[in-house]
């Protein structure tokens, strides 16, 4: 039945530049709407870190036609959900409602694209709220503190070096004038992509979209391209200390290419082979076979302009740093043999990816998310529905090449994390651990 989905996806661009994707699926009991503004934290100027996220909050401040809170109340009354998120690459406004409430969503999204009320009172309130969110996300949990510090140090100077929450100092300095300038620069139909998924009539929906958005004047500025993470210069090593359990963690990371790289499909299959199965091949070597670490594994991160893969090994805090990194290097050298990459495991990885893809197609919200991301990160909205076919076509040789290019021959960035406090027993007797493992 879902073979017909590709035919059901209608994509068009209004004369004012607004891109529109409508996926009609009569079986879906809710309609998801997502408005992707192609601006994120990475597009902020120095000195205004957190502005994209702060502005996301301000977008709920109301308009003359729909005062503050009206949009949320409308969605809640229908039993729906409404929210927004700001990442490094985009700011997305999401809602999902039963079909009867859907036309009202378009009216409200269209209205706030250019008619938002910005005033001192609302800005002052949202600055306080955003600062509390920032504290929650980046200050009050040891792992969050670690990640923020590592991101900042490893990517210094790169637009991805700040968490989208920004900095308290910059948020406190935001002005109505600056927010208006941001709004005028980026909240324009020609910088946005509207995605609708659910039991809707494409023709009628397109008519409603034109009614809600068609008269909005294009303009603004196109942000400069974010540098690829693959081409960035990184420090060789980084040492961190945090209030974590009494283990030391050695990490070796390598940058990955942008989401629209020619070999992006091969990289995704590689990720699935390394991290999507029941067995993590790196952990199997380092922990199970060699007993060289308490725990080990692979983490994968991905943004529009690149990502990273991290191999880590954790041990009790008695181990020498050089030994820890040698353990990782030895593990990677063994994985170079590609024993984990067989026709059988490749086929299985593709089957898992296909299963996940098909499983997502029941859900309007997930499909809207996939279409929005496919357009902005890969340049083609329809690829949300054809990506599985691309993945299916990836060959063993292409995966091997991606491994060699990005991991085996990739630049290795070393990070070592120590705990701030170690219990006396572990400090005194931790070195005995290998004798009993």
């Amino acid at each position, binding site marked *: *039945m*879902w073979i017909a989905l590709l035919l059901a996806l209608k994509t068009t661009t209004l004369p004012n530049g607004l891109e529109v994707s409508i996926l009609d699926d*009569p*079986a*879906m*009991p*809710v309609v998801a709407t997502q408005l992707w503004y192609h601006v994120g934290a990475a597009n902020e100027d120095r000195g205004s870190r957190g502005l994209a996220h702060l502005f996301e909050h301000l977008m709920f401040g109301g308009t003359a036609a729909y005062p*503050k*809170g009206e949009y*949320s109340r409308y969605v*809640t*009354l*229908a*039993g729906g959900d*409404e929210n927004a998120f700001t990442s490094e690459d985009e700011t997305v406004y999401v809602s*999902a*409602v*039963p079909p*009867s*409430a859907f036309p009202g969503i378009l009216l409200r999204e269209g209205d706030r694209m250019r008619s938002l009320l910005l005033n001192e009172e609302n800005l002052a*309130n949202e*600055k306080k*709220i955003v*600062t*509390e*969110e920032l504290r*929650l996300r980046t*200050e*009050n*949990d*040891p792992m969050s*503190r670690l990640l923020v510090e590592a991101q900042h140090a490893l990517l210094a100077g790169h637009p991805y070096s700040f968490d989208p929450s920004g900095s308290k100092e910059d948020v406190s300095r935001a002005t109505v004038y600056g927010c208006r300038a941001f709004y005028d620069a980026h909240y324009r139909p020609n910088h946005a992509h509207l995605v609708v998924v659910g*039991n809707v009539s494409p023709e009628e929906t397109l008519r409603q979209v034109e009614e809600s958005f068609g008269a909005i004047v294009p303009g603004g500025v196109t942000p400069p391209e974010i540098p690829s993470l693959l081409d960035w210069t990184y420090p060789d090593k980084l040492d961190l200390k945090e*209030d*974590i*359990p009494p*283990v030391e963690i050695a990490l070796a990371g390598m940058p990955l290419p942008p989401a629209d790289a020619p070999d992006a499909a091969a990289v995704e299959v590689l990720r699935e082979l390394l991290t999507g*199965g*029941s*067995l993590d091949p790196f952990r*199997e070597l380092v922990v*199970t076979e060699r007993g060289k670490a*308490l*725990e080990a594994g692979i983490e994968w991160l991905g943004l529009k302009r690149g990502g990273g893969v991290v191999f880590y090994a954790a041990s009790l805090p008695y181990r020498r740093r050089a030994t820890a990194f040698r353990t990782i290097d030895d593990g990677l050298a063994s994985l170079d043999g590609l024993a984990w990459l067989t026709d*059988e495991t490749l*086929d*299985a*990885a*593709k*089957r*898992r990816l*296909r*299963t996940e893809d*098909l*499983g997502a*197609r*029941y*859900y*309007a919200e997930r499909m809207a998310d996939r279409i929005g991301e496919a357009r902005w990160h890969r340049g083609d909205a329809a690829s949300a529905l054809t990506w599985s076919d691309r993945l299916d076509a990836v060959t063993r040789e292409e995966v091997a090449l991606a491994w060699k290019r990005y991991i085996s021959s990739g630049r290795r960035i070393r990070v070592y994390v120590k705990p701030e406090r170690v219990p006396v027993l572990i400090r005194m007797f931790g070195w005995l651990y290998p004798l009993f*493992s």
Partner: protein
Amino acid sequence: MALPAVLLSAAAAAWSVDGATQAVLFEDHRAPVVTIVVELPVGTWSPFFERRDGETAFTFQDDDSGRSLRRRMDATGITIDLDVDRRFSVMRATTLTDRVPEALGLVQSILANRDYDERELSRHRRERKILWHQTDTDVGFKLSQAAARELFAEGDPRRTAWEKPPDASTNGAALAEARDEILRTPGRLIGFAGDVTRADAERWAAGLLPPAGTAPSGVAPAFAPVRPAGDRARERDLPIRKLTQVYLAYVRDSIPLDDPRRPAFLIADHVLGGHFYSRLVTALRHEGGETYGAGTRDDGDVASGVYRVSTFTRADNAAHIEGKLRETLRVFRQDGITEEERAGAVSALSGARAFARQAPAQLLARYRLERRLGLPEGAIDATIDRAAEVPLAEINAFIRAFYDPAAFSMLRAVPR
């Protein structure tokens, strides 16, 4: 609300496999994907689980010493998850339709595995000890632990769940035996969702599990009465290292799912903290920007759990926000809700039901939830229907009784 025909046709087809095992199918052929679930009525709340380390027994049964089971999963593209919850243990297999027979074979092999990997068990024991240190800095954990200690007596499973667990067992043979006992416990469910026909499901369910036996002792959770409000601390501070915010949890015992007061509670709770313009979010976030988040949460089921009203703010603003929270609750209790708020809550709760009906696996999950709680099929939706009928005066009478400050304890995670 009218639902699309394809979902209306996805009603449960249930049948009895044997005297101790039921099966259910949510048939939906939109995608060639199948979810298979084996659910066993023993969970972390069961005394048996604590006595025999049922959690390790169930979740490590796919770790045989040669890793052959996991290798089979990774060679076939079948995903198998093992999970234990408070009242059940569940194995969930997800696969493309053409591999269902292999998935069933894997399920059977895992359930028959007696060769537990004892090296992996040792690592698990060590890891669990080390990770316990992490709870020292976990705000959510500390508040949940403190709430459980206030509300539930020592030994009550609702409290034990938040205490330091005993060492995990590393005795593979004993764990295999415990797993077998879990597996033989009557009240088993085999569930299918997705691209499966009734005929196939019946055939597959028939031979899937070994014969049931008698239930081991200590399957049913043994709850003690909730501690009387007068015996609980009125307030308690929980110092945590390096915090820059204070987190508040104003807690009391919750209204069980099958309690006659539940419909009124649903309306009251929605108005108080159930949405972005609820009373709490309006007072604490929109009016004055004191916080990013405020709301309510109920972790009970047919047994009373913890009901919490929570928020957070910067450390030097803690007293102020606590005052606003208490005042919001005082007014809520004194004046109750309006007819407009009541109608809005009914509309919201009714409309939200569509979100749980998008996929056959969701329908199966709802069916399982109601079954294991001993609720009739459709009971959760029926409670919402009943909520729509509760008169405003009855809801407000409930609010006056339930939101009595004498029933609540104020817990604060504060900077050390």
